[in-house]
């Protein structure tokens, strides 16, 4: 087998394997780190999958309904190679209800005082100058308690 052909095969194998593992990484992040911070003995995880791969410097807004009188926990976590994430919870008028920059926590517990749609904005801090931006999964896990 010539060398060029060997390189092609190895490259194809790497593409195939990286694609398969990328698919599994985000759901794994939700079910491991996400569920741990949520504490599934106290909170029932909601069923939507709010996780995606991002790079340093990227951000995502998640629009979500919250109902009056319900006790919620919002957890925001990233893959091991990612920096600590910042998140804010705002209403549609962008009035800030919670800011993790202030509390330095990965989660926020609250009881919704009304039926409302809120925005959870997650920001991956920018990479340091001259460093290659890291990329990895981030996850927003939401649970409710009885």
């Amino acid at each position, binding site marked *: *087998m010539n060398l060029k*052909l060997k390189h*092609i*095969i190895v490259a*194809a*194998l790497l*593409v*195939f394997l990286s*694609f*398969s593992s990328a*698919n599994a990484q*985000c*759901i794994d992040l*939700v*079910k491991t780190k996400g569920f741990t911070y949520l504490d*599934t003995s106290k909170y*029932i*995880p*909601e*069923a*939507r*999958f*709010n*996780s*995606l*791969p*991002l790079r340093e*410097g*990227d*951000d*995502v*807004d*998640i*629009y*979500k*309904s919250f*109902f*009056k009188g*319900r006790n919620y926990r919002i957890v925001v976590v990233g893959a091991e190679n990612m920096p600590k994430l910042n998140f804010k919870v705002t209403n549609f008028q962008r009035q800030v209800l919670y800011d993790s920059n202030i509390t330095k926590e990965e989660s926020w517990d609250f009881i919704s005082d009304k*039926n*409302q*749609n809120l925005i959870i904005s997650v920001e991956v801090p920018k990479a340091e100058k001259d460093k290659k931006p890291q990329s990895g999964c981030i996850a927003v896990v*939401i649970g*409710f308690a*009885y």
Partner: protein
Amino acid sequence: MNRKIFFLILFLGISTWFLSSCKSGESADNDELAGETIDSADIREEILISMLAPSDMAVMLIDNPALSFNKEIINPSSNFDKYNTNSKIALNIGVYTADLSYASLFEQEQITYDYLDIVKDMSEEIGISQSIEKRHLDMIKNSKLDKNDMMKIINESFMNTDAYLRENNRQKVITMILIGGWVEAQYIAVSLSKDSPDTNSQLTESILAQKISLELMNKALENVAGDKTLMPLKADIDKIYKAYLIMEDNMNDENFKEFCLLIRQVRNNYVV
């Protein structure tokens, strides 16, 4: 030797393509439900509209100690064979997920198990593999679980489906499942209300509260003009939203009854 290498590369190429598109090789509207590929390298600011899952809808609407389980309300399991297009299957995965969530809230293990099994088969039919794990089905069948445990299993199964569809760029399928689930959960709620706002005030309040989840759904459906699969569903959602506005403007028995009638019409159209 070269022939073997050629087939190895061909196999890897086909496998990668299969994983990225992940369509089941069946019926006519399959391509329409495959969605579009987004180059993740170009995404800097993402927006996710996290509409309620059918199971979460059921909890918000009908998890109420004053209510009871009524098997007559839910979509019969025998209807399962009728759904022979991907659109119908996707809508009714949502319908059956709302039904089994209703059953689980009242600890109806057998119905929860049977319907979860149906959802598993339907999911596989449209190329969603590994959504409902065998260990979860076994747990429901063999263990005495309370409603919280069942809810965790149902939510984790739905999350697997959601993750699979998102990662394979099949957003249209998940949108249809969510619409089917939203309508079915509302159908269960209005049936339990017996079309009267006075039957159970907490239930009425929960039905009215879902206006905000419909607003998110509208937002998610903003850019579907010209999509012949989603346009009729958007028209249904628009009609329901108008009915909400009428009730908001003037909440009385007649307007509530009209709302219930509309939900019933839309739902019956989905399950036939």
